[in-house]
């Protein structure tokens, strides 16, 4: 590809593109989460019946993917670009393809494919139907029509587009390792690549996630986050309550990465987080005057 745009430019171009199509550009949520879907702007805001069109970058953290910065494209910390369009517009696929064009990916030169991939998050009690989008065989995005969130049916339905920013950068910049991603496009001593920005933390967090995290403290924190979430729902504070659900989910991911959760316990932990998501969402719906049923 001739036009090798930088990582930050990919983000800028996506923001500009979606801004031009009526999306408000939000900022990342302030908690650790495994995917942009956890952002309250996705989970809580798509539950209400109001139109909602937003886009944002969400740093995503998956302790289980810790590889000490040694894996070509798997990191415990990476970036997703999320677009939520509610209700999903008729031309949503065309908009998505145009956004690829804005990144210089020409749909006539590349084999772009919508391959069935239904999405489900057991921790959020959420599910949707859609595709993963392939570009010459590489998965670059996830495209989902949200059907259910926190166990509640979504009406109207939101379309969720998630771009894997590193994957797209690897593709556009024609490189093989995320560490080499050109971050700012600058030359000389101002040039910065992905590893210079993120990889020291990546190495340290990998060690923390897999070796050092104090599991006794984490187990306690999980219980505390759960208690707090439940108590906040009773006080009609669904947003803070949902934040504690996000915390519980991340702590669970950490415990899982530390290998202290057995297969059966796993299901029980997931059910506990799902319960928090459900009561927060239900509380939020009730406060808005009625459930979606």
């Amino acid at each position, binding site marked *: 590809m001739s036009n090798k745009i930088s990582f930050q430019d990919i983000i800028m171009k996506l923001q500009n593109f979606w801004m031009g199509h009526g999306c408000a550009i939000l900022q990342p949520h302030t908690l650790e989460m495994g995917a942009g879907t956890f952002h309250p702007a996705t989970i809580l805001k798509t539950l209400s019946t109001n139109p909602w069109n937003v886009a944002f970058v969400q740093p995503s953290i998956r302790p289980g993917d810790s590889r000490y910065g040694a894996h070509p494209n798997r990191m415990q910390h990476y970036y997703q670009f999320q677009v939520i369009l509610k209700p*999903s517009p008729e031309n949503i696929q065309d908009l998505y393809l145009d956004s690829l064009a804005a990144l210089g990916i020409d749909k006539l030169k590349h*084999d772009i494919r919508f391959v069935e991939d239904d999405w489900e998050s057991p921790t959020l009690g959420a599910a949707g*139907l859609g595709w993963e989008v392939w570009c010459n065989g*590489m998965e670059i995005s996830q495209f989902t029509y949200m059907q259910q969130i926190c166990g509640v049916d979504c009406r*109207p339905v939101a379309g969720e587009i998630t771009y894997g920013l590193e994957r797209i950068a690897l593709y556009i910049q024609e490189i*093989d390792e995320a560490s080499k991603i050109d971050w700012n496009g600058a030359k000389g001593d101002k040039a910065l690549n992905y590893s210079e920005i993120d990889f020291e933390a990546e190495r340290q967090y990998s060690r923390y996630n897999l070796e050092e995290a104090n599991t006794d403290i984490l187990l306690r924190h999980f219980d505390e986050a759960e208690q707090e979430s439940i108590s906040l729902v009773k006080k009609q504070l669904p947003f803070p309550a949902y934040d504690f659900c996000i915390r519980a989910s991340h702590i669970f991911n950490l415990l899982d990465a530390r290998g202290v959760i057995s297969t*059966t316990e796993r299901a029980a932990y997931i059910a506990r987080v799902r319960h928090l998501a459900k009561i927060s969402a239900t509380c939020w719906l009730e406060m808005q005057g009625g459930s979606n049923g």
Partner: protein
Amino acid sequence: MAELLLELYTEEIPAMMQKAVEKGFEDIYNKALSAESIDYTHLKTYIGPRRITLHIDGLQEELEAQNIEIKGPKSTAPDSAIDGFCRSKGIGRDSLVIKGECYFYEKKIEARSLKSVLPKIIVENIGKYVWPKSMYWGDYKVKWVRPLLNILCILDGEILALEYAHLKANNKSFGHRFADYNAFEVKSFADYKEQLHTKHVILDRAERLELISTSIKKLEAKHNIQAFDEPKLLEEVAGLNEHINVLVGEIDKRFLHIPPEALVSSMKTHQKFFPCKDATNGFAPYFIFVSNVPGADNNEIIRGNEKVLSARLADALYFYEQDQKTPLKDRDLSKIVFHANIGTMQDKVGRLIHLAEYFDKGNEDLVRAASLCKSDLVSEMVGEFPELQGIMGDYYAKQEGENKEIALAIRDHYKPMGTDDLPKGLAAKLALIDKIDSLVGLMVAGERATGSKDPFALRRMALGIIRIILAEKLDVNLTAIVDLNYTSFATSSDIKPEIILFIEDRLKNYYKDTYDTQVIRAAIDLSLEDNILITDLKLRFLDEFSKSQSGLELIEVYRRVTNILSDEKFDKIDVTLFNNTHEKNLYNKLLGIIPNVKASIGSSDFSKAFNQILDLKTPLTSFFDNVMVNDNDPIIAQNRKAMLFELSNLFKQIAHFEYL
């Protein structure tokens, strides 16, 4: 004669759902048209990723008036039934006539034009097709497999006005999503197909399949390779592409010493590539794939796909090389939980070794295989490709110098997974004890199969146990091996009988299509007979026996005997109390045959055992004809019953004859 063309234009329909749509839609519309007595000469459905097309030709344009007689309930039926019938037809009782025993509704249908009835028929039936999964989108009320974007519907070139959900039918269709996306007007089916063709869309799935196959053949000849025969993958790629552009990519040779199963896994499942063999049947450094893009720079697409595959295989190669640094026997299974309530995989392997020693004394290969069979679960390769469990163990075992049988046992001990891939030899033995341990362990851990829920696949495990024993003719005392395994688990409640009953239930289920229910109930009782091979012989025997003349006679004898005996307890037979020749005769005869019958049962020759019992028929008949069992003297009566009880015990040792 009219021609109808209907196109439901959608976002990408999942590839593997497409094939069933062809027949599904045809059935629905054939039925709908015949219900309205509309004639036509041709009806066919086409399916692709972006559209479902229905083409009906030779439609009768003027529909004649007709009377249809619809049969209702009997004239003697309760009011509610008659009212119900009227309601369902939207008529009053005064529209009914009685003919013979039944009410009839004589429906008069006026003459109509095709054009006036078709829209309703089309609209009412679009939603009748049941998708495996469907969804809502936007703010619409309709559910469909993926968002429905447009409906084209023309009758003889004219738009047939109809509305489905939020869409109004028009005469427009669309070409290939990327190459020629503009809407175009359609005049007829022939025109439609032709225009789609020039706009890079191949309408007919069969045609796409054919084109893929012939293109693959050309590439095979060119590169002297042969693509793996993958019918499912073929179906999938035919459902992913509207245009067919078959390309070949190269694999860097350094990846070729990764085990082929891992290569295939990466290529087929993740990338939808066809793996290829070379002229000597080895793994060829090529892959074949289908691109949806017409007339593009194929090189860039090929290069892109090669790159993606390389990245995947580089991962696999790294994992494979890492794995070879730690031998199977040194792998730590204590971190992998088998089930929280019963411990880790290491514990499981310990139990398997114990079972192996008991089950096949002196078989060192079995013990060795048992000790290594789970080790690959902590390999990087299985972590990345879970479907390679067992397979990677096989490779690593061979590399470490284990013999072929052991390696194969490690590979195959997860079988049977499907219907006809039973493990053999050493693998069968290992598979059997592994399944017994899993079944017993998981039930001890509190897992159960209930109704449609069986998250741990306990039923499949039990069925696996049964099929392996029968196929390999393994002479196993199943209850004893379950007993032994059971003692390895610390548990307070005794659920052993429940486990045996669970297997028994699966055994009954296994035979349900082969034998009558009564025969199955009579023959299968694992607490009575713990060897499934013998149970199998019993079933075969009882099946014939219960249909034969002598069998029926013996069943009658058994019934007479047990009718007299209630649930009482009986003392020992006292010979001195016998006071006539009939009972003495019977007793002597009985005494004479008991050891023979037992010997026959011991050697599982049930038909011999029954022929021996059959010898009692004459003395027994004269006994019943001449002797009153319920003598006035209760002691004598008890003694006679004790003898009959002894006789009934012979039957009970074989089966539950009361069910026959």
